[in-house]
């Protein structure tokens, strides 16, 4: 009897162990690979999921080179194709641009067109005047005289003619600084490169602005949006879908204080001064270059004009925070944003279509 009992015990335990092993045979956990590098005038953080480390490492190294190349190609303040172009335009000459720079110029013109002049990538002179072309922070704002001088000669991108690869302008105030959207364009190219290598789950984050593809193992990629005033905390969380970009323009990113006044880096091309209404603008849209330009444009447009500019630029997911901390969202943004403080008062804008574009 004893023996029978034991064998019964054994066989059932064997069965149980077998079942456990069977049920444990699920897919091994995918690893997340993270990289960060200093290039492109900022820090790039790359997150890759769902592939072997070797492939991720290889892609990360290639992107590092790509970003460095883009930075060198597009930098307005060191010898580069952009600097050459600026010099030729200032002299009123017709410039020949290569196929790497041309798409950026076309986008620059198109974005300016639809932004009602709230986005202007030709204000190199103004940025230089403020000292934002350098890595270091400016010490004091430019003299009023200089601002007035700028206001009399606001560069007008509609005077730029692009004919094939020939670029000319009747306005010699045009000085490109592509910093306003080159980051977005670069992120788009980086994502394209990852896809071409068979990587389908990744985040490319350049200095806080990002685009995602795929998802984190078994859930969407989740992004924290930094609080514009409470340092070190997030205001909300966002699940980002495949192919979406999330861009934020905030007055807290770069600023300096001069005689007790705070001056930040988002300049209104129409006034020559930092835009004053808002503290941050967050945008979700697929095209990262557009997202980059639109985040700046809406910040500059302010409370009065942002809805108009967003509609023109084809952006329907927007969150704004004004200088009193009041939140504004479009109807399409609201269900996406999980605020950390749940009972915040939000102004919902319904003038912008709910539909996904």
């Amino acid at each position, binding site marked *: 009897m004893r023996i029978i009992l034991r064998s019964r015990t054994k066989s059932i335990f064997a069965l149980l162990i077998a079942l456990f092993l069977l049920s444990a045979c699920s897919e091994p956990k995918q690893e997340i690979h993270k990289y960060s590098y200093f290039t492109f005038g900022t820090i790039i953080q790359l*997150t890759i999921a769902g592939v072997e480390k070797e492939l991720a490492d290889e892609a990360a190294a290639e992107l590092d080179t790509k970003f460095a190349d883009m930075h060198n190609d597009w930098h307005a303040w060191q010898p580069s194709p952009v600097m050459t172009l600026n010099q030729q335009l200032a002299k009123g000459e017709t410039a020949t641009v290569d196929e790497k720079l041309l798409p950026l110029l076309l986008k620059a013109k198109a974005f300016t067109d639809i932004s009602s002049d709230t986005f202007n990538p030709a204000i190199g002179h103004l940025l230089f005047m403020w000292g934002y072309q350098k890595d270091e922070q400016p010490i004091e704002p430019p003299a009023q005289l200089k601002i007035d001088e700028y206001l009399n000669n606001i560069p007008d991108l509609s005077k730029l003619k692009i004919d094939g690869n020939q670029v000319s302008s009747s306005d010699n105030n045009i000085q490109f600084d592509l910093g306003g959207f080159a980051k977005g364009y670069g992120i788009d190219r980086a994502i394209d490169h990852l896809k071409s290598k068979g990587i389908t789950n990744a985040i490319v984050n350049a200095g806080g602005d990002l685009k995602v593809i795929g998802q984190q193992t078994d859930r969407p990629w989740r992004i924290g949006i930094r609080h514009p005033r409470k340092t070190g905390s997030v205001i909300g969380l966002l699940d980002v879908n495949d192919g979406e970009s999330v861009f934020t323009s905030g007055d807290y990113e770069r600023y300096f204080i001069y005689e007790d006044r705070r001056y930040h880096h988002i300049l209104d091309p129409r006034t020559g001064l930092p835009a004053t209404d808002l503290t941050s603008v967050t945008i979700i849209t697929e095209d990262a270059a557009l997202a980059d330009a639109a985040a700046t444009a809406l910040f500059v447009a302010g409370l009065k004009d942002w809805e108009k500019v967003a509609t023109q630029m084809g952006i329907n997911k927007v969150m704004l925070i004004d200088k009193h901390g009041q939140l504004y969202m479009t109807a399409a943004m609201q269900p996406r944003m999980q605020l950390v403080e749940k009972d915040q008062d939000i102004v919902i804008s319904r003038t912008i279509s709910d539909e996904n574009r």
Partner: protein
Amino acid sequence: MKIGDKLVLIIGIVLVASLYKQLWFSEGHGDFIQITIDAKEQRLVSLAEDQILKMKGKVGISELEIHNGKIRFKHSPCTNQICVHTGWLEKGGDFAACLPNRIAVEVVANNTLFDSINF
């Protein structure tokens, strides 16, 4: 009910209460920080121990302060001081960098709220 039963019940209630506290009211405190210097050198440091880390970067020495499970750039040789303005980092995914000095700090936690931060 025996005294033992009552004890089990009390311990059970305390256990459940502490679970609420742990999982609902402490939002994934970071376990480690990953420090990247000039994109090449990476190191992992625990947030458990209060200390000051001196990191040599491209333009000088940045001082990182770890205190109560949080970290911040205390001093940095850069002129713009963005890293210092960023303040304390504590939750998984929190991130700060000193661009001129090429030092980046990211909190790495098991229980992270987000995968990347937008700012």
